[in-house]
């Protein structure tokens, strides 16, 4: 028996959300009295892999050969299925992302496993059943689920479980597994990605701008504030529809769902569809010139004022932090 955790990476290091999944895996493995094994696919050095040890893995399976050079849910699902069978995993944990859920959907079929995505806490163990909690109706409600059967596959919401940092030095084993022929049917052409930026979905802090900012030329101050706070930038849907900002920054019901420690919304009205994407945030700050803006009802802190006056002052204050 074991708990197997898929570690997703970005720029050759393991994502924080995956380290959280390993920490959750460790906590679950303690309850199940079993081993915590992480699996990393791709090009990582020993230092990056040992982050998994610190987060709670006692063993790391490292797969470099026989897999596509870019992340492929199809290929990775077959690798994970092979590994899960080999280490007799009773639970496979991933972190919630398009890649994670792409893997999870196929893996759950291959392992004939019960599955749940976007789980909000370390599952509770009740005999052979795992009890999990997840948000539904895009953040408007919660559900409690029981997962039965011999194997469970679960993806964990980001920033939901505290990171463990006092683990051990994990043993690292290089392995190869059979990759499904189907993976080859998706022919990768290229990736268009802003490198070096903090990923919106991984960020501890997000500074987001709405139509109140009037035009793309005014995003300089949003970027500057974000940079000073170590934050990622986001936006409302009209802003990406108008092409003021790239689509992958659009937060909300039909965009990216974020759950940072701090979400700062500037010139966003707080439509219910926007709130659906940010309700998992720990603390919300709203800056809007209209005191009646609905976003204030969902906020912890607020400033009623003109963004073009308030944000420059915040930038000055942030420089002194």
């Amino acid at each position, binding site marked *: 028996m074991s708990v197997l955790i898929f570690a997703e990476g*970005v720029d050759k290091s393991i994502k924080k959300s995956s380290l959280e999944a390993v920490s959750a895996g460790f906590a679950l493995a303690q309850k199940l009295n079993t081993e915590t094994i992480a699996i990393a696919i791709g090009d990582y050095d020993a230092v990056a892999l040992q982050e998994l040890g610190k987060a709670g893995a006692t063993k790391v399976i490292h797969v470099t050969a026989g897999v596509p050079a*870019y992340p492929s*849910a*199809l290929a990775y*699902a077959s690798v994970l299925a092979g590994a899960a069978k080999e280490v007799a995993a009773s639970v496979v944990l991933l972190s919630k992302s*398009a890649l994670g*859920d*792409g893997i*999870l959907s*196929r893996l*759950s*079929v291959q392992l004939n496993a*019960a*599955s749940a*995505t*976007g789980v909000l806490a370390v599952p509770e163990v009740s005999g052979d059943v795992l009890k999990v909690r*997840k948000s*539904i*109706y*895009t*953040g408007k*409600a*919660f*559900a*409690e689920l*029981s997962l*039965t059967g011999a194997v469970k596959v679960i993806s964990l919401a980001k920033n939901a479980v505290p990171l463990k940092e006092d683990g051990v030095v994990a043993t690292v084993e290089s392995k190869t597994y059979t990759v499904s022929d*189907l*993976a080859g*049917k*998706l022919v*990768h*052409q*290229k*990736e*268009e*990605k802003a490198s070096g930026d903090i990923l*919106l979905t991984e960020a*501890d*802090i997000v500074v987001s701008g709405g139509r109140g900012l009037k035009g793309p030329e005014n995003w300089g101050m949003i970027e500057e504030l974000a940079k000073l*706070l170590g934050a990622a930038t986001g936006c409302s849907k009209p802003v990406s529809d108008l092409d003021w900002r*790239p689509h*992958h920054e659009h937060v909300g*019901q*039909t965009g990216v769902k974020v759950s940072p420690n*701090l979400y700062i919304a500037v010139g966003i009205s707080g439509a219910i*569809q926007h709130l*659906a994407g940010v*309700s998992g945030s720990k*603390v919300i*700050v709203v800056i809007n010139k209209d005191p009646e803006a609905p976003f204030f009802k969902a906020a*912890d*802190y*607020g*400033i009623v*004022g003109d963004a073009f006056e308030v944000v420059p*002052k915040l930038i000055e*204050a*942030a420089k002194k*932090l």
Partner: protein
Amino acid sequence: MKILVCITNVPDTTSKISFSDDKKKFNDAGVQFIIGPYDEYALSKAVDLKEKNNATIVVLNVGGPETEPTIRKALAIGADEAIRVNATPTDAWFVAKQIAAVAKDGGYDLILMGRESIDFNGGVVHGMVAELLGLPSVSPVMKLDLEGTKATIAKEIEGGKELLEVSLPFVAGCQEPISEWKIPNMRGIMSARTKPLTVVEPVAVEGNVVYDQFSLPAPKGAVKLVDASDPAKLFDLLKNEAKVL
């Protein structure tokens, strides 16, 4: 060419969500139901492809009789026929098995779905269906161009996009800006009434997920306002009170 579009019947995005007193059932009183927004992108794309490729669109929903108005709306938007699998969805696995059972011998060249349902937010049914049918799948798809049997796709990845190619048949989970939503015209609405809607009974599925109960988030306390003339105070509060800086 034959396209299968899978749609959900979900509460309108502005709906207030509530549950029965025993927390076991969604309370649908006064709730307006719509085609899932992501599913509507899938359907709109199918309509684009229909115009260009002389395709037939079959729309599929797994749900009870109450979903038929939503299915008719999809027919009004441009689907040619509809199938309803007569069962209340219990979880993604159940739904995926039903869709796969319908699709298996249907001769579909393309299966379009939404990237995720906005009720259970799984984001997994497309992958499960593809795995069950032995097909490749891609999600979330923001752009899909078809040239003969070859599709060029832009898929959203964190912080950007990936461009890839795949041959028919495959499964895609769609999102904006793949296509513009179509507004049904009068002719569409009239013809939707007479387009075929076939009801099929579900296949048996051994479930392994049980929804025990539902709950609502705790109400949010009042917002703490900071004076616009002293924004530094905000950082002070975020650091020392909220402890998020």
